[in-house]
């Protein structure tokens, strides 16, 4: 089971949208994952295998022990699937 954080500025809205689509994508691939959404400052002190966020916020997470990768279009399942394929090693 991998641990994934989806991160936005406040942890209320957009990170939840990303979480929904990331969970869907991971489930379709048969990857077992625990996906949590949070804000950028909380994420800094959380343990995870992967962090998915926007380009705008990724630089705030440099140095985190998790592998951080970017999704630009949160509503594009093709982009989300591709990002997972390129970054997540099951």
């Amino acid at each position, binding site marked *: 089971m991998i641990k994934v954080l989806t991160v*936005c*500025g*406040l942890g*209320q*809205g*957009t990170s*939840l*949208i990303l979480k*929904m*689509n990331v969970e869907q994508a991971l489930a379709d691939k048969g990857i077992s994952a625990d996906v949590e959404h949070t804000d*950028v400052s909380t994420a800094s002190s959380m343990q995870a295998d992967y962090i998915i*966020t*926007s*380009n*705008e*916020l990724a630089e705030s997470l440099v140095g985190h022990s998790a592998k951080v990768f970017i999704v*630009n*279009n*949160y*509503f*594009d*399942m093709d982009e989300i699937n591709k990002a997972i394929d390129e970054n997540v090693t099951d």
Partner: protein
Amino acid sequence: MKFLEESIVKIGLEVADAEDAIEAAGNLLVDEGLVEKSYTKAMRNSYKENGPYFVLAPNIAIPHARPEDGVKEASVSLVQLKEPVVFGHSTNDPVRLVFGLGASSSDEHLILLQKLTTLLNDSVNVDKLTSATNYEDIKNILEMER
């Protein structure tokens, strides 16, 4: 729970800049009594402090704040901009659709985000929302998704 009802959708609005657009989306919620005035201000402050990360996809911004900033009822408004507006996002500028999200801490918040995600995951819907000229057009798109 309110999701893109006629009273909280505005088509073809002209605005000066991104902050104006955020304010317009927030004020639709204020006018319907769904959020406090303070919530619109918090939405603008979030943009100033955290930047335009809430421009989630090309054309689409979803400004919001925290439930404790004054949300009375979970809700989503829409301002369709007459002219595209630059928010400062590296890949998704400019914006045509601004969805004002009244973020509550209830289960309704999840239901609303699920509805919004289902709607916007389909790029055909995004094109239709962008080219809609009246509320009937929007209503037709929403009914297709039910």
